[in-house]
């Protein structure tokens, strides 16, 4: 059986709503004909309009309202179809949700989960494509998870919902259709930890969310070229535990971080490098490589995004530099660099 990322999320939501009669979900598009990219299918029907509701276009207030509900025994899941819209709610996120437990002396915590979807391609442009995990990670009091695979999405969303603290759950839009072979998905208690999802010898690759899929897609071809790598999927951006990266580096002594859905400055990739650099026991043979988007807003035109996004060729050239080997490959970056797969009919 195959389960897609959006099905996994849908399943997690339904199960958690059943499990906890107090859980509430809300957001723009949650009950409309498209069911929030299919992730909220059946929710309103099963659990009623009071626990699953559309909201006015009022991102800041709705965040504070979520804080209030979750303080008053209604944990909640708030969702935004694009992360960019959530910029309107930074006061309630940073000054309320993140600090509440601390600033009132630990009296009560805010069990809110905030689902944010990141757009890419098909003209998403400057204000429908931003991914601000580094902002959220900077703020004490928040947790940030960005699972790559359906099973992890399922487990981590459930974990986030049961977490007594605010958790930012970032989904890349291009992951919604990613499928994973599963028997029956079942909740497996999990930790906010990275995972070594593929083993190799020549270098360590660190990535998360869509970047992990991009990195994985090169595995075969690199192996053919006799290049193998440890691939570490972060899953949790905050807390960020780098021990597994350190372990891998002791073996490979070479590092490539693919942080391809982030601008470079003060990015998560930079944070990882900063932590590693300060370690006594890490000795790299070559300077580490960090690949991110350029420090430029996302342009809309498909002609521009072609060289704006990181291409397979870019990654391979960098791998080649890192391992000191020429790598043969046929570029299959198609014209359709701005859609995830042939099923995708733009724009959303």
């Amino acid at each position, binding site marked *: 059986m195959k389960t897609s990322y959006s099905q996994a999320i849908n399943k997690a939501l339904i199960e958690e709503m059943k499990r906890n009669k107090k859980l509430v979900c809300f957001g*723009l598009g949650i009950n*409309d004909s498209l069911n929030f990219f299919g992730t909220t299918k059946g929710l309103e029907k099963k659990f009623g309009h009071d626990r699953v509701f559309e909201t006015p*276009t009022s991102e800041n207030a709705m965040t504070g309202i979520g804080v209030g509900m979750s303080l008053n025994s209604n944990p909640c899941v708030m969702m935004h179809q694009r992360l960019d819209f959530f910029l309107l709610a930074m006061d309630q996120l940073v000054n309320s949700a993140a600090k509440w437990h601390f600033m009132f002396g630990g009296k009560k915590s805010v069990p809110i989960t905030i689902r944010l979807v990141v757009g890419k391609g098909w003209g998403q442009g400057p204000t429908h494509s931003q991914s601000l995990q580094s902002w959220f990670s900077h703020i004490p009091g928040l947790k940030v998870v960005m699972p790559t695979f359906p099973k992890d999405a399922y487990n981590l969303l459930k974990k986030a919902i049961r977490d007594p603290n605010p958790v930012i759950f970032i989904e890349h839009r291009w992951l919604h259709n990613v499928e994973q072979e599963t028997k029956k998905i079942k909740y497996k208690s999990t930790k906010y930890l990275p995972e070594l999802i593929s083993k190799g010898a020549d270098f360590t690759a660190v990535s998360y969310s869509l970047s992990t899929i991009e990195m994985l897609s090169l595995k075969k071809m690199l192996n053919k070229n006799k290049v193998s790598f440890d691939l570490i999927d972060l899953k949790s951006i905050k807390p960020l535990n780098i021990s597994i990266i350190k372990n891998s580096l002791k073996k490979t002594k070479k590092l490539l971080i693919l942080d391809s859905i982030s601008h470079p400055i003060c990015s998560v990739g930079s944070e990882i490098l900063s932590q590693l650099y300060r370690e006594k026991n890490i000795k790299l043979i070559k300077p580490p490589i960090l690949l991110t988007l350029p420090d430029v807003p996302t342009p809309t035109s498909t002609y*521009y995004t072609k060289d704006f996004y990181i291409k397979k060729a870019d990654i391979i050239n960098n791998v080649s530099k890192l391992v000191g080997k020429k790598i043969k490959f046929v570029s299959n970056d198609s014209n359709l660099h701005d859609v995830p797969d042939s099923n995708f009919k733009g724009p959303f």
Partner: protein
Amino acid sequence: MKKNISKKIYEIQKKIRIVEEKIASNYNQNRMRCPTHLSIGQESVAATSGLALSHNDISISYHRSHAHFLAKGGSSKKLFAELHGFDEGCSKGVGGSMHLIDLKNNFYGSTAIVSNSIPVGVGLAYSLKLAKKKNLVCIYIGDAAVEEGVFFESINFSVLKKLPVVFICENNFYSVYTHIKERQPKKRKIFKLASAIGATSHSFKQDNPFKLFQKFDELFKKIRKNPMTHFVEIETFRYLEHCGPNDDTSLGYRKLQEVKKWKKKDPLAFSRSYLTRNKILNKNQIEILDKKININVDKDFNFLSKLKKPKFKDIRKLVYKA
């Protein structure tokens, strides 16, 4: 009303409709690769207010802005090029359908975040006031825009400072697929809300574009003379889906009847028959006019085939002004 103005009203409405239909019928070729919100059905508001604005008046808009852009004098050629992502687009293809601009005609842009352009419009008006210019800023918004706090903050400031601003709220009852009654208190009229904030408020009708034009024309003259913040709500209706080129009645979020009711009182059809009824143009003349518009729009669209594909490196320096 002067004949040529009546003719002009029809002409702009028709042009907007044809341009939008051109986009719709070509959209599925997947060469306009950006989210695109069409205003077919809503042209009356843009056409009449656009015509009533003078060149030095400023307008600014939201995600559904093709009509406002065109009505302020924006070029359909540049609009098409923008949607196709060419350097020749009004925003060099960087912005796409949701980020149109035409500074020469004082169309100061449209943006994609709900309500995001509202305070920018108010700021533009503050500058007009400082420069003692006798012009106004027209801020187009949808019905969901008034749910964002920034709308309220902005209009409060605009009223406080007596800025020459007119908000034109196109209430098409839906935000994406959600009806206004799920988002705003029942029985609360948007224009009355604006009035309580302190704006002088009006409720206009779109059905007769000639009357609507006169109302705008009078109102704008008044504002230019006596700078104040005004608010106009107009009920209207989009015929196609929220974003994209298709009919969406199959989605079931609005009743076929509702769509039909609005299409039956299509303001463009009204204008057409108004012209003949009032002997401003006869049927034949109208057909000639339509044809001319069609030919021009086709020409503007076809010029795209000659354009070169631009490259990221051409624009990456645009992040900062040097």
